[in-house]
Structures are given as C-alpha cells and as structure tokens.
C-alpha cells in the first residue's frame, strides 16, 4: 500500500463515508483525522482507529507526515474554516502531498444560484458572510495552492442524501411539524447526491480530474424533483401527501429572503439601548456604573417620561401575534426556487464519475436506515412513536 490517505474531518457524514469506502477497497492506508471524539462513534463502532488534530494548531498536524493524499472534509465555524484550511494547505505543500481533494459546495454560487451555474464556469457570487461565501474563500485558497504546485481538485456537492443524511432527517422533522410547504406541487428540481456516490467521486478524484484546484460538481445525475424527495420522506414522517401545505412562488418570494436591514442611526441607538446589549455591557464595572446612573436619572423623571422615551424609540407596544398555524421554515422551502440543475458532466468527463447508486436506491437506503434508527419496526414502535 504505497498510498497513505489522510481524511480530514473523518467523523462527519461525508468523511465517514469516504473512510468506509477507502477501507473497504483494501488498497489504501487510510488515516482518519478528527477534531473531537463527540461525533466519531460511527467509525469507532467499526474499530477504525482515529487520530485527533486541531487545524488551528499546526503542531498537531504532524500526523499528516508521509501522507501522499489529503481529502479535506472538515467543517466548522466561519472563523475556523479559513485559518484551518490555511494551515492544512501549508502542511500539505511542505509535506509534498501528491494530491489534495477539497470538499466544497454548490453554495459557492449563491442562493439562489445563477441560471448559468448549470456548469462550474458560472460566476460564483454568494452573499457576503454566507456559508457559500466562506466556502468560496476556501476554494480560492485551494486554487492558489494549486498554482504554487499542489495538485488539487475541488468537489462541489449539493444537498447530501442517503443513510444518515442530515438534509433528509431535517426535512422529515419539518414535515412532521408542518414546517415544510411544497411549491408548485414539488415539480421544481432538487439537486442531490447520495453520500456513497460522493465518496465514490472522492476516490476517483484521488487520481483523476483537474489539478489546478478547479471545481467539479458531483450530483446524482438524475432529474430528481422535490416531489420525488418529499414522496420518499413523507411516509417516514407519518404525513399524508394531501396534508402537506402548499405555498406559491409569489407568497414565498414575499417572505424569503427577508428584507435587508439598512443602516440607520435610530436602529443603532435602539440596538445599543436594548436590554440584551445592556445586559452584556453591564458586566463591565465602569459601563455597569454608567448604565445604573442613566437608569437612576431616568427614574427621577417618573414612569410617564420613561414610557414616552421608550415609545419614541420602539413605538407602541404591540401584543404578540399568536397563530395556531405551524411556522414554515422559509429558508428550506425557498430551496425549491433555486431552479438550476447543476450538471455533473464535468465529473463524468474528468474523473470518470458514474454514480454507483440511483436516486431510488439512495432513498431506499435512507429509508432502511431511518426505520432502523428510529425503531419503526420494533415491537415497541407504537410506544416510541408517542415521543414525537
């Protein structure tokens, strides 16, 4: 086994699938690297030894020594992803790693993505500060490292399906709670890739495809619609098709994306005077004293004056709106408006990707996993269902 492959972020959904696939091939020396042990149970239950690293601490990255390939499946907070990848790339470059496979996302194209993002050549213009924006910074770093000589490829999956899929389980939870509504009877396209298909693409990318850090979409390559996805998930949520709420494009467009808040002095003053901000500021002894003095001064003018100031800043107090209708998750619902089917033609051409599992097989695998995990077929299922 001349190839020693480090999987960074091995305990995540994708990392675990990649580790399992590469180990099952028996052709690689696999080095699964995790950040913390909390999420690593699936790997350890199979007896796979794990090593802990901290991408923010380069001194922990010595375990990458001797690795010929690095697959980066790591995720984390925004302020972790950029410096973490910087360290990882530096260590990979210094260690003369032969190939760097970076897991990005179709989110780099923005939400909604532009119509041209059928292919990878479309301009990537995500909203500043969004998840896609952070991933785009990462893509740029990988491309720069490639320019400096590191053979690298960037794989961009959409939502991930298959066993243990967070995306599917989130949709089931929303369906059960009445938080998901169909747009146009679910006829719009849903970009999806099975986690095992993605792992297969990662393995292919170890040897094939662009070496300039270029992006490659990896999808299930079929015309899956939201109707297909929801039809598969609704029975698991115990929801009848006819009971799933519907929302029109127009209605959805009115509430998502939420209107941007413009800069204004009044808004900033309101924010500074809000109890949340003052609670934090009061922790500082000096600011606490200032707050106390101001409140005491205001109290001297009486409650009527205090009410007038409050009213001028915040307006009249309105009673909270109480609705018996469940609240829709507009962010998820609005994914139905994306309207672009990202093509994995480049993956086929450059890395030889052909998804091992069809969407139907993927959904069947998810269903089998979900039923097992939730205990649907146990003699006690009638009892545990009471907990939903």
């Amino acid at each position, binding site marked *: 086994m001349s190839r020693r492959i480090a999987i960074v972020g091995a305990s995540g959904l994708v990392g675990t699938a990649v580790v399992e696939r590469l180990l099952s091939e028996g052709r690689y020396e696999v080095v699964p690297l995790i950040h913390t042990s909390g999420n690593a*149970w699936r790997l*350890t*239950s199979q007896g796979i030894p*794990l090593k802990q690293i901290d991408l923010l601490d380069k001194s922990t990255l010595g375990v990458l020594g001797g690795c010929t390939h690095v697959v980066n499946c790591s995720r984390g907070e925004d302020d972790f992803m950029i410096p973490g990848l910087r360290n990882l790339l530096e260590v990979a470059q210094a260690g003369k790693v032969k190939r760097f496979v970076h897991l990005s996302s179709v989110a780099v194209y923005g939400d909604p993505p532009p119509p041209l993002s059928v292919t990878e050549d479309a301009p990537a213009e995500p909203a500043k500060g969004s998840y896609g924006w952070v991933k785009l910074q990462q893509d740029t770093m990988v491309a720069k490292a490639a320019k400096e000589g590191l053979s690298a490829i960037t794989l961009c999956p959409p939502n991930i399906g298959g066993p243990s899929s967070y995306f599917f389980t989130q949709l089931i939870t929303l369906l059960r709670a009445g938080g998901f509504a169909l747009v146009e009877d679910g006829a719009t396209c849903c970009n999806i890739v099975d986690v095992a298909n993605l792992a297969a693409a990662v393995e292919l990318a170890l040897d094939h495809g662009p070496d300039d850090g270029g992006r490659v979409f990896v999808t299930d390559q079929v015309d899956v619609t939201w109707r297909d996805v929801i039809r598969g998930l609704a029975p698991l949520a115990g929801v009848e098709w006819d009971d799933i709420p519907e929302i029109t494009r127009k209605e959805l467009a009115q509430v998502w994306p939420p209107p941007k808040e413009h800069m204004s002095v009044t808004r900033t003053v309101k924010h500074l005077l809000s109890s949340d901000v003052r609670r934090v500021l009061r922790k500082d002894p000096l600011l606490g004293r200032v707050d106390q003095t101001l409140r005491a001064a205001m109290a001297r003018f009486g409650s009527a004056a205090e009410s007038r100031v409050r009213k001028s800043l915040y307006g009249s107090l309105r009673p909270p709106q109480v609705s018996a209708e469940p609240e829709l998750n507009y962010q998820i619902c609005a994914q139905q408006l994306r309207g672009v089917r990202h093509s994995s033609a480049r993956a086929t051409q450059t890395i030889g990707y052909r998804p091992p*599992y069809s969407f139907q097989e993927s959904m069947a695998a998810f269903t089998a996993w979900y039923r097992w995990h*939730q*205990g649907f077929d146990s003699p006690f299922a009638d009892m*545990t269902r*009471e907990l939903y």
Partner: protein
Amino acid sequence: MLPFIDGALIAAPNDSHGSLGLHCIRAGVATLIEKPLCTTLADAESLVAEAHKAGVTLATGYSTRFRDNTVFLKELLDTREFGTVHRFAHQFGSAGGWAPLSAYNLQRKATGGGVLVVTGTHFLDRMLYLWGYPDQSTLVDDGVNGPEANATATFRFDRGDGQIAGVARYSKTGSLPSGLVIDTEAGIVKMGDSDEAPVILFPRSNPNVAVTIRRRGKPRFDPRISPFQHQLEDFVSATRDKRDPMVDGKQGAASIRLLEELYSHRHVDARRWYRTESAA
C-alpha cells in the same frame, strides 16, 4: 494527602473508577464515584465490600435520580396511581455530543462499553429504581469492532400481577425524540428526559386528552437547583449523618451487573443499507 480530606468525588475515565475508589475507601475517605461505578462487576463488588468494611460512605453519581420528576414518578407507580404497568419504552439519541479531550469515551476498555454505558446507564439505573432487577434481558447493538454507537436493550420483569416488558434505545449517530413512555392500566404515561419534564397521562378512556400530573405541595428536590448540586448535598449529608446516600454503592453495582449481563449476550447487528450490498 488522603488523611486530610473528608470526601472525594471521582470523575475520571470509567476504567479508573475502581482503583481510585478503592484507594480512597481504604484511606477512610467518603467517596462519590461518577456513573458508572466502575467497569466490571468484580470491581463493583470490591468497592461495596471495602466501603462496608471501612464504614465509609460510597455513593454512585446517577444525577438523574435527583430530579423531582423521577422521585414523583416512582411514588405514583408505587401507589398504583396508574394501575398495572404493562410495557415501557425509553430512548435518547443525539448525533455526537460529549467529547472529552482525551477521547477515552471512544475506547470500549476505558468506558466499559459504548452508548449503553455513556448514555443509557442513567435510565438503566432509573429502571432498576422503578421496577427492580429484570428477569430477562437482551441487547442488540452495532459495535462491530469497537464500542457500540447504537444500542437497543429489552427487558422482562415477572411480577405477581403479570409481566412488564420494556425497551431502552440509545444512539450516538442521530437524534431520537427522548423520553419515557409507560403503557399502564390507566393509559399511556409519558415523561420527557429533562429535569423539569412533567408526568403526562393520556387516559385509556380518552387518549386524546393529556392530563398533566403535578405534585401537590413541596417537591422532594427543588427544581431550581441542579440535580448535581442535590446529589453533592446528599453525599455530604449522608457522610456527616452516617446514613446511606440516595444512590449507594450497591445500587451502582446493580447497574454494573445489568450492563455486564447485557453485554455478555449481546447480538451485533452490522447491517448495510444499500440493497446492492450483502448483509453482514
């Protein structure tokens, strides 16, 4: 140092509980050992015997026993408020969770098991508290070569007025709606898995009605105070008053006995999810 202290709290990796506990007890120091008491029944029995011999307090850190709702449910069941109990189900699941820096939680030897120990042992202790020791048990889990990440244990209790069948399900790979459901003569009794979850009855006569059952008067454990604090106060006062703590070493040992029994006849379920893969 040990001669100068009155009590010790052991919250180290599970496989060190036995030796550290014995060290403290033999030095005459009252000892509260975090759950589980230790990792083998032999060690548990040694701890209990040595504590008895030395006249030292030995407590086991099952903090959920210091929830008022746990004690209240026990009182309701003991007074047959719901009549006969037929079945119960408890489950708790999360994707990941507690992650000690040493990552000892991922080593079967260090924890004494997998999710059944790390997560499930709290309920197993409560189950023993509510219904005593089961007459039969089974365990199915997915620990092929390491600590299991998913476990389903079933139990049967033979009682004078019939059998109680139960299940306890735990996962470290995905979220499960958590709580306890009990099928009783009076109806379905439900209680969430949190410090302040109420006891709710769905009467057999009208399952669409939810009756929240509250204690009249002062709670046994003030819910505004953390169960951990109640546990510590119980340990300290038991040591001072020379009485048994609420969860003593013997009860901790009973949990270890049950865990050992479950693992001794565990069945490993290593299934694959894609139809094109062969089942193991």
